[in-house]
């Protein structure tokens, strides 16, 4: 009986240690799970962010910051994308503008997606031919930063102004072809002074529309 009582303590210690071992094992399993779920790919999000940022700021694809050039962006190739944003090289990538897929390489199923609201600009050409007299005015219907004026050889116009500022002046009559660059921040009114002429006014306004640029990078 005496020996039996002495071992009772050891027995309870063994039970306690067994309980500790199982608690530790459980803790390790939980830690493993937490570690496995923390294994993310920061490179995907970075690639998507960098490509979206470069697409809306690089000169090759934009008219100005955050305004995409429609003709350039619709001809986007995988090589262009890699050159713009090297972090996307060797990854699956998809670029969507509005509802249209511009570029898809590989098959990005999951991955990270970055969205940006952008303007998509298209340069349109508007040409008109008109006869102007002394004091004649013409207001361009859309703002533009590039106007081409072509005067006939019989021109008597001496001065051309845009919103009061002198653009062209020739006391002998302005003849020939000129490119002028009015401000794109205000509506331009051209006024002609000095005589009559036949003039072709070609303006190239940007037509913009809003769209969402979605860049997905996977792998």
């Amino acid at each position, binding site marked *: 009986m*005496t020996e039996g009582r*002495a*071992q009772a*303590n*050891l027995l309870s*210690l*063994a039970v306690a*240690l067994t309980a*500790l*071992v199982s608690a*530790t094992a459980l803790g*390790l399993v939980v*830690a493993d799970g937490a*570690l496995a779920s*923390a*294994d*993310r790919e*920061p*490179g995907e*999000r*970075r690639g998507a*962010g*960098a*490509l979206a*940022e*470069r697409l809306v*700021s*690089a*000169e090759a694809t934009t008219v100005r*910051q955050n305004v995409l050039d429609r003709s350039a962006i619709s001809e986007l190739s995988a090589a262009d994308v890699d050159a*713009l*944003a*090297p*972090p996307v*090289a060797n990854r699956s990538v998809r670029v969507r503008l509005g509802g249209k897929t511009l570029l898809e390489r590989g098959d990005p199923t999951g991955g990270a997606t970055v969205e940006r609201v952008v303007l998509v600009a298209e340069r349109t050409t508007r040409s008109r031919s008109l006869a102007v007299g002394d004091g004649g005015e013409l207001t361009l219907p859309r703002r533009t930063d590039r106007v081409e004026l072509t005067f006939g050889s019989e021109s008597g116009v001496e001065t051309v102004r845009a919103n009061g500022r002198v653009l062209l002046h020739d006391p002998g009559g302005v003849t020939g072809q000129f490119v002028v660059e009015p401000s794109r921040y205000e509506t331009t009114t051209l006024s002609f002074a000095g005589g009559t002429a036949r003039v072709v006014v070609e303006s190239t306004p940007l037509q913009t529309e809003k769209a969402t640029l979605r860049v997905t990078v996977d792998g």
Partner: protein
Amino acid sequence: MSLRKDGRALTPAVGKALEVGLVVLFVGALTTALYGGAVPDYRDAVGGEVGDRAVVAAAERIENAVPPRATQARSVHAVDLPRSIRGENYRLRVEERTLALEHPSPAVGAETDLALPERVGDVGGEWRSSDDAVVLVTGDTEGLRVELTTREELGGER
């Protein structure tokens, strides 16, 4: 029976000694098992993840430091780096437009290409994790130069 011949007084002492031995053995075995296998694995895994994120965060900071096109540019941006990864100091270095993390442990290491505009000409420099890291961008119409440097080297300039 005399008291000397009675062994009952030894019972608690022997019992406690056995318990102490058992507990010491247990703690030793557990410590060896954890530090020999699980803990270094976890530290490697976490260090690797932290390294990846540190490189990505630093690369984004460098890219954001590039100012818009201008005739004269000079900008200084502070970069927040983890002081140490896996308990050790490390370096971040730019070589051929690739930002790479150099760490004494082979389990930690990451690199990423920088997405910079074409007008950025030269990119160079390196940071140690103990530095007060800043990105210095200088340039003119010819092009921009991006340099990884420290606040001390700039003389505390903001």
